[in-house]
């Protein structure tokens, strides 16, 4: 029933596209699967991120080093995942997904309380946020589910897909971590979009989603409501809830076209800007490097997303297509939500700027996602006609 055949499973072949783009000359490295445009752009963004972060943490070398280590870990994960054939990924997907769900339940039962929310599992050596895993596991599960079915999904299939999204999303929202829950819903939703659901159904779902906002409002914690309300009118509370938005807008606006120069951002350095090394680092870039700096960063992001979409377009089966597309679109979604939040277009939901914000877990998740892209590109399944 499958008219598919792996073009190559062994790592010894020279025939796949990516193999020809191998960067390294030593023979033992030739077997490594890599996508050079992705790798170069990722390194560029990571490098830029470290430069900005050095300024944002107040020229603190220790903090910078720590982030550098995180980058290395993420890069290692990226390289490792890139070597995993997509078929294996697909086979493991249900296990990963349900493992993630179990962890989410565990977090609710025994998780550490950090900043008023249970998000972390203390694994002895490292703490770990299971919700991060779900950011990838949900699109993977959808892609897995649709892999052996015809696109677009039928109505019944659609309901199953929605369940795949809603269950982890609700568990995450209960922690409460509204930001990650939204991201998980977005990742899943984008995957469904890519699976070819008709525009009419999307519209209906969208309206239903808006309608569900009302009960969601009841579910929200006070600080979350305040955030949404201040988003609508930040100036109403300049020293309280609206502080973040106003300060980040000042940081961006005072940066101008060329910025105040590296390490010269007064907003950031004088601690007016909250969370300047994490969620609001976009404002630090805007202040110190100006509009030009931000345009460069956005261009790099677009290259990554574009390359991801290109890989998705080239992918040969439903699982890899949907997964590659979802990873790329989700990545852009992160960028847009973070940047939109920092410049006052969207509410503050606590989404880090991908690959730049300090913090390990999200960086690893993102790099694993890119690793999957590379794997998909490097192990394309050729449709045998």
């Amino acid at each position, binding site marked *: 029933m499958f008219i598919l055949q792996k073009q190559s499973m062994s790592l010894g072949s020279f025939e796949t596209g990516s193999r020809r783009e191998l960067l390294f000359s030593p023979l033992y490295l030739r077997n490594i699967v890599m996508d050079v445009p992705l790798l170069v752009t990722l390194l560029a963004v990571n490098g830029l991120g470290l430069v900005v972060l050095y300024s944002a943490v107040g020229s603190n070398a220790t903090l910078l080093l720590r982030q550098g280590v995180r980058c290395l870990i993420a890069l290692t994960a990226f390289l490792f995942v890139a070597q995993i054939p997509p078929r294996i990924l697909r086979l493991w997907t249900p296990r990963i997904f349900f493992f993630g769900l179990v962890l989410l339940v565990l977090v609710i039962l025994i998780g550490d309380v950090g900043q008023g929310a249970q998000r972390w599992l203390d694994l002895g050596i490292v703490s770990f946020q299971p919700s991060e895993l779900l950011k990838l596991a949900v699109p993977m599960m959808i892609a897995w589910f649709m892999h052996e079915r*015809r696109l677009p999904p039928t109505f019944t299939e659609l309901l199953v897909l929605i369940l795949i999204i809603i269950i982890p999303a609700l568990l995450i929202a209960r922690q409460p971590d509204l930001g990650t829950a939204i991201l998980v819903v977005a990742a899943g939703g984008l995957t469904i979009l890519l*699976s070819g659901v008709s525009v009419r159904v999307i519209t209906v779902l969208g309206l239903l989603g808006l309608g569900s906002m009302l009960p969601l409002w009841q579910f929200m914690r006070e600080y979350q409501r305040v955030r949404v309300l201040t988003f609508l009118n930040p100036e109403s509370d300049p020293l309280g809830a609206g502080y973040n938005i106003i300060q980040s807008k000042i940081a*961006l*606006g005072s940066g101008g076209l060329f910025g105040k120069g590296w390490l010269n951002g007064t*907003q950031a350095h004088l601690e*007016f800007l909250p969370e300047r090394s994490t969620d609001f680092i976009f404002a630090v870039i*805007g202040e110190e490097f100006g*509009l030009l700096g931000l345009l460069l960063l*956005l261009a790099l992001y677009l290259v990554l997303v574009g390359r991801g*979409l290109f890989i998705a377009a080239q992918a040969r089966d439903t699982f890899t297509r949907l997964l590659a597309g979802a990873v790329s679109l989700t990545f852009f979604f992160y960028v847009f939500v973070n940047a939109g939040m920092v410049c006052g277009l969207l509410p503050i939901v606590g989404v880090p700027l991908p690959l730049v914000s300090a913090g390990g877990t999200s960086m690893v998740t993102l790099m694993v996602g890119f690793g999957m892209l590379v794997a998909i590109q490097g192990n394309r399944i050729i449709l045998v006609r």
Partner: protein
Amino acid sequence: MNQAVPFKNHWKEQRLFLSRLIAAGIIILLSTGVLVSRLFQLQIVEHQQFAAMSQGNRLRIEPLAPTRGLIFDRNGVVLAENLPTWELVLIPEEVADLDVALDALEALGLVDPDDRNGLTELVRSHRGFERVKLRNLTEEEAARFAVRRHHFPGVDIREGLVRSYPYGEAVAHALGYVASISPADLRRIERSEYAASSNIGKTGVERSYEQLLHGVVGYRQQVVNAPGRVLFDPAANTGLAGAGASPTGLETKWPIPGDNLILAIDIRLQLAAAAAMEGVRGAVVAIDPTNGDVLTFFSAPSFDLNRFPTGLSRTDLRALTTDSDEPLFNRALAGTYPPGSVIKPFLALAALDYGVVDADHEIMCPGYFMLPGQSRRYRDWKPQGHGRMDLHQAIIESCDVYFYQLAVTLEIDSIAQFLRTFGFGAATGLDISGEARGIVPSREWKRSRFARPEEQIWFPGETVITGIGQGFTLVTPLQLAHANATLASRGKPFQPRLVIGTENGMTGEVILLEPRAQLTLDLDDADWQRIHDAMLGVTEDIGGSAREVMAGTAYRVAGKTGTAQVYSLAQDEEYDEENLDERLRDHGLFLAYAPAEAPSISLAVVVENRGGGSRTAAPIARQILDVYFTEAEYVARQL
């Protein structure tokens, strides 16, 4: 579904997927466009505005408190100074939860539970960025807080200066005190002027000369971060005086210290008064008749001014305000007493001036007085009577019957008119606020004072007792000293004053204030002389009511004793001091001026509920005058 797995149309699916990818790509480009245009708006279009705002963020204007002016007595003795202290301050906007913060401070023993409500109200009445002083801390308390400082965002200790009064108890009612700015004070001051000050003058000279003493607030610009921590302060290390920009472009405008004040008070007399008044209630006021200088201004019992600037707890304040002796009450300024016999010289002068009696006019004193056609007897203090009395002798022996007759002859409205020319019934114009006006009764006064027609009628008997300073008449010790000074200067009164000069806090330039003469009383010299002689007789002649007390002085004193009834005796009741409730016993009064030849001090002493003036008030006057003439010996006049 059971007709095997449906055939997957790969080509169709790929097209569908690609179309979705293209749609996604377009949406991505559009979103990026939105983002970029937003950034363009913020960073290019509104750049100027945000750049200005970011400047405002970095700079904070820190107000600098001016040093409060010092207060000296007339000889340069410091009466009020500023000592270094620690203040517990709170910046409302930096405290997340005021109650939690106050709870924690209370747990540390730095805030009195009783003061909680007051402090909460105080903090609420300030704007978010204004520093509120909670209280002063001792060294030990400051240290206790300092080690836990990081637990208290928005609460800090600050070095400051606190008002200190070396003679806190002796000069309390003249000097007044400073204390925390209250919500009520905030309404009467220019808030920005007090941005750095935590205390304000509440009473006495401290209040009425607040503007001079306070000085002009300064400020400095500091580079701060959002939580308000100072990162760079150009003014902190440099002792540069004067306004101007520092090399870093941060401005500093130094505060201008308040003016120093020179009081008319002579601390030696003041201390003598405080010592003499130990254990009694009452007041002493001494005025220089030649210029209105208030040399002594003491109200007993007193209190220690030093308890207020550092923040009096509610409990302590309650103890002070509910004390039955009312130490906070300024008796010298606002205590109103029946003048008793000390009113007699003034009435005698009135009679002479109006020509209703002449000096040789004599009456027979049988020990009581009766109005024609009435049976009521108005008793003399001497039941057996004084016998034949002329004006001179009536003053010396303080014959009541003579003055009953005199008052009836003068008529109440004439009495009132004359007494007012001596300043009775009106504020003397002393340069601190809170003066009581007292009462000079008249028909007109009674009409406006009472509502019911039957109460508005003036009865002849009321005129009779006015003759000996009883009835409705009420005077303050300050009014007595002032009127007595007018007697001493023979009709040339000066507005009483506590402050006689100012000293510029920066230049040290001293400006002495001119004495302010009041309306001259144009009376016959012979009349003045008769009253003067009679008052001299009080202390010198045989039978004079203050002769024993003033015996053996190196100076000559003119005086008049007085005894004011608090309790009206029934017709045939005997005054029995022993069995009368203490608060109903007579007040003792004494007026004196000296030296008799050229008076330079006019003294009024009032002692509450201790009996007649010759026994109680006159000895106190003697002690003060002795100090004035021996130890101080006119030096009180030099500057």
